[in-house]
């Protein structure tokens, strides 16, 4: 472990479109654009627009960064501090917390980050957790081998996360007409990026 972890961390320069508090969680805005002079890739970021664990997220460093100014952020592949919403309780080790729409803070039960140290005072240490499975409800009857839409639910199934998987295909082992509208399904992400239902209905 380094003596000065902040210096040794892999930082990505970013420029937000609004003031970001220290440790705020952001999503990509217009992309990561190399500077025309130096070639340094600077991420253009914004506040999360949807509650989702499926997007690439960035966590601001320890500094407040004004709109249009440069800051430093990480992808969270190593344990980093992030803001959490104290209204969702106190993060406990092992829980999944993810980004909430219109917030710089993590919310409980949303995939995206695993808590590695109990939260305290609005700041929690988390590490990126790759989302490979998620639960949701089919929005309509699902035909065999046809794309369908699944509303992704929070991990605790307490409600719709507001995020949809629009191109989910049933697993080849599933029979035609097996999934009806409103059925609970489990989806997984294949290596080619295609989401597929592998468990339904329940």
């Amino acid at each position: 472990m380094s003596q000065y972890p902040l210096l040794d961390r892999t930082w990505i320069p970013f420029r937000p479109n609004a003031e970001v508090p220290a440790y705020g969680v952001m999503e990509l805005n217009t992309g990561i654009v190399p500077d025309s002079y130096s070639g340094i890739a600077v991420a253009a970021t914004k506040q999360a627009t949807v509650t989702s664990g499926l997007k690439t997220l960035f966590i601001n460093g320890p500094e407040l960064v004004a709109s249009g100014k440069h800051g430093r952020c990480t992808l969270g592949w190593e344990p980093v501090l992030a803001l959490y919403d104290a209204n969702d309780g106190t993060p406990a080790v092992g829980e999944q917390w993810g980004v909430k729409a219109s917030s710089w803070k993590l919310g409980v039960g949303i995939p995206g980050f695993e808590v590695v140290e109990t939260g305290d005072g609005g700041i929690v240490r988390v590490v990126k957790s790759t989302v490979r499975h998620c639960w949701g409800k089919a929005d309509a009857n699902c035909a065999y081998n046809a794309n369908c839409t699944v509303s992704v639910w929070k991990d605790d199934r307490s409600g719709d996360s507001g995020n949809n998987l629009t191109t989910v295909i049933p697993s080849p082992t599933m029979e035609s007409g097996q999934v009806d509208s409103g059925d609970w399904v489990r989806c997984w992400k294949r290596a080619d990026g295609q989401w597929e239902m592998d468990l339904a209905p329940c």
Partner: protein
Amino acid sequence: MAELQGIVTFTGVNQVVECSFDLTHGTTPSVATLTIVPQAQILSVTGTLRFQFGSLWVQFPDCKVDTGSFERNDSNEIWRLSIFDRRWRWADSLIWGHYNVPIDSGYYRGHDTNYPSEKTPGQLAEKCFLAMNETTYDRSNMPSNPRPEAEWDYQSAASALSDLCDKVGCRVVLDIDNKVYIRRAGVGAQLPDGNDVLSRSMTSTPNIMPRLAIVTDKIRYQMDLLLEAVGEDTDGSVKPLGDLSYAAEMGYNATTQRFAEIPFPYWACFNDAATSEAKRKLADNTVLRWYRVKCAKTSPVVVPGFCEQGAVAVAGGGADGSFSITDREWLLPLSREQVQTEYDQDEKQWKNKDAAVYGVWFENKDVRTNIVSTLTPSAYTTSRYKDSFSIDTEHGIVHFGQPVFRNMETAAAPTQLTIGPALLRLRTACCVCYPGERTQARYVRAIKNYTGDPTALHCVRHDEITPGVYCNYSSSYAVQRLYSNFAWMQKTCDYFLDSLKKQYEDPKPQVYRYMGLKQVRLDGAIQQVTYSMDQGSGMTTTVTRNCETMDRPLSYNERLRVERSRSIQDIADAQKAGSQKRQRKREGRQ
């Protein structure tokens, strides 16, 4: 009563007709010249030279015949030769070692209990005697205070001993009891008077005693120097951050001392102009990495004890003897060491502490508070910067390997980091120029109670005396208490002043010539005893005090110079031979 007759004998010589032997100070052997009844060969190369006059005698064992000095008659018989006294054995002695290596504080490196480097002159002399295989000696008259540096690199031990004695105002004396003494130069007994004195010669040379002074090495002052963040500008100049031409571009506000943009990593803020790359490099290399000693009229550096340096008075000093410097140039170059010393467990020796940086800085850990909240002297132990840095001593700039900054948020438990320059001090030593003059201060120790010619001054530099000063600071960096090695230094200076003074005191040189053999012992004042025996005047003894007889081929000082040059020549010859050998090897390989 039969008339007493002088007899001179030497082992292996049948009969000595005439003899003259000058016994003198130093490590080079004295030479006896013998005229003998011609004989085919000398039976012994070494032996005892003995002078006898009635019941009185002196003898010098282990003398050696100088075989190159033989003079022969027509029958090829030897009739004149020279003999060295036993100091001939010292010529081939070798010594090596480095002792009393001075460090800034005036102490000496290598206070290891197993291998101490600090040696008194007496201890150094012992080493020389050991190398010379000399066991019968007395060094009790050597001074104990001076610590002359001895850097012996496989050189003649006899020459090293001569040099050492010269440095501390002593002489090597082979006395008539065959024992070697170290005597204080100029100090010794009066010449004995009596009926046997054939002639007396006394001259008096009254001298004007000038004001005598010893000038030491430059005084090293240890200070906690305030540092300010600087950067290199596009024109190559080094300026405070707020004065840099690209200060606004990098988001630095000199008033609030805060960065509006986060400089890490890559200084991505420079992205709007064609000149950005050069500025980025400058900022990345220097901003928050370079901190320079702050010294100006608005923030002077207080030099502790500057006005307490002996004879030289400095106007404008504070009541505590401190003095305020307002130009950084007067402090440069800085040292990389402090005046204070510490015992190095790894190197097993005492050494000056390395220069250290401490203060209010951010540790780059997830804890968002600075390492300490306020810059005070007591923070030295808790807030030392432990990562790498170097000191550009010529310009007074500390170069850090990583950006060093502080969190400008002042809350007890800050929720975020706002980057600003660190508040740092550099604890190191430096020499200080006299205000207005670009000459670094030295300690001047003058003779006390001088009432002579005020315009006459004789100063002698002793760079091996290294004065050092440090102090305790109050929490507001006012000088609280001074520490220095001045007491030790003054004693040492006084010793040298004493020796210097003797040069101006009337030495009252005396030359007495005695009938027969006079058993006069050599000391620091009695420099030469000449035993002569010839057929005309019989045996006589000539003794000189505070002078040498004019008929000596070389005076003591001349002999000293010859010894030194011979030693240097030996080294030069050895180096030349070595390089020639290496050259031959290289040529052989090719």
